[in-house]
């Protein structure tokens, strides 16, 4: 008896889950509005803005030097070419390894973790300034 009740309960739960799943798929998954797009873009641009602020700030390192002093508008960073073989490091690296190299050397500061919101913001800013350029991994 107990076993049968359990079986029915599990069966019902499965049906409910399936219904919920189907319901979400039908009414949500491939439907988004212009408002959604605007909001997502605004979220992205707010991080780009943070990245721009970090890029032009003298506070990322220890000597007051800002990334933008050598890379105005993020130029000459070539985000579309990474990961690539960085001959000075002798291995294939993502762009963030070069960002960290600059933080540690010309800026005399500390490297950022890959998931540090500051690193994400800098990557978002550099890609934004490079928008429209086709990706070309490995290019020198």
């Amino acid at each position, binding site marked *: 008896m107990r076993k049968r009740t359990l079986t029915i309960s599990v069966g019902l739960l499965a049906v409910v889950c399936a219904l919920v799943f189907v319901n979400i798929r039908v009414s949500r998954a491939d439907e988004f509005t212009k408002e959604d797009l605007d909001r997502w873009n605004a979220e992205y641009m707010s991080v780009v803005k943070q990245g721009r602020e970090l890029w032009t700030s003298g506070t990322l390192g220890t000597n007051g030097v800002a990334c*933008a002093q050598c890379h105005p*508008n993020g130029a000459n960073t070539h985000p579309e070419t990474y990961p690539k073989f960085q001959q000075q490091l002798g291995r294939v690296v993502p762009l963030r390894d070069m960002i960290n190299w600059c933080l540690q050397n010309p800026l005399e500061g500390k490297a950022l973790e890959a998931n540090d919101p500051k690193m994400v913001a800098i990557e978002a800013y550099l890609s934004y300034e*490079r928008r429209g350029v086709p990706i070309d991994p490995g290019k020198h």
Partner: protein
Amino acid sequence: MCDFHISRRGFLKSAGAAAAISTLPVSMVELAFAEPEKNFTFAYISDSHIQEIEGAKFVRNWDRGLIRAVAETNLLNPKPDFVVFGGDLAQLGKKSELDHGAEMLAKLNYDVHCVMGEHDYYLDLGKYWSELYGPHYYSWDHKGVHFITLNSVLTYDEWTHERWPTEMQRMIEMAGLDNPNGSPFMVGDKQREWLAKDLSKVKTDTPIVLFSHSPIQKIYKGWNFWTEDAEQIQELLQPFDNATVIYGHVHQIQYNQIGNISFHAVMATAWPWPYPETYAQAEQHMPKLTVPMNRADPFFERDATGWQLIDLNSGRVAMRYNLYNNTNRTVKYNPATNQPEDEAYQQPESRVAPQIHY
């Protein structure tokens, strides 16, 4: 043409730890005349951006650039007639930065003529710089050449005098090369009137060499590779058989010819800048004549920085770029084509891969 080299013995003696130096890069300017005895040279150092961290601490990297350029210029043999410093001695125009830079420049064993840069100007509008280096614009004659220095980094009065709550805020806004809150450089009415008057006393067959911080031509407005009244100044120079404009600010090799006017940019001692074409969103007009410098390798701290020796031959400039981690280059006026050309790389087939910027 003069054959210049650094006296190696002198260098070894004064440098001490010279074992690491295998080549001695120098960039210079030669003015050579039809009669070779009239030829002379001067050296050009620019854009040192001496930057205070706090107190007596300054950014080591930028200090080293200026120290090296001064040391090497002092070792030139034969000696240049004088040195020009092309502006942006300081990063934020502070007395401490200008003093620290001036102390290093004072080690030059030559007369120095200074050009105002925006980083020297926008804190106190050039007041302290003037105490060190005199008037913001002036002219002089030397061995048959008329030299002019302009302050080309002025801008609209409203921007300068009314827009910013503090002098430091104004300085910081202009110091950011790509800052949309900046404002276009200009020479302005007052100096242009002075220039017209100054040039009215000069015969049109006299070679003219004009020094400015910004290019007296329009290349890319977004980074102020630009002078708002460039055409009006060019118009004043066009009646002369032979005029040359030498400018800093851009931290890279550029050259161009517009009518009778040759244009040459100089390297920075502090850091190199990307060419505007590498900014995907830029509408830019880099002179087609320019063969770019090699792309910088950031792992070599002084790469793509340097200084120049300038030879004046028949009043025409030969710009010798002293590039620390690259092959030195010479960009020289070619009378056959009536334009400056690189001695090695001018033809498309002679260019090398690192000269491709994207």
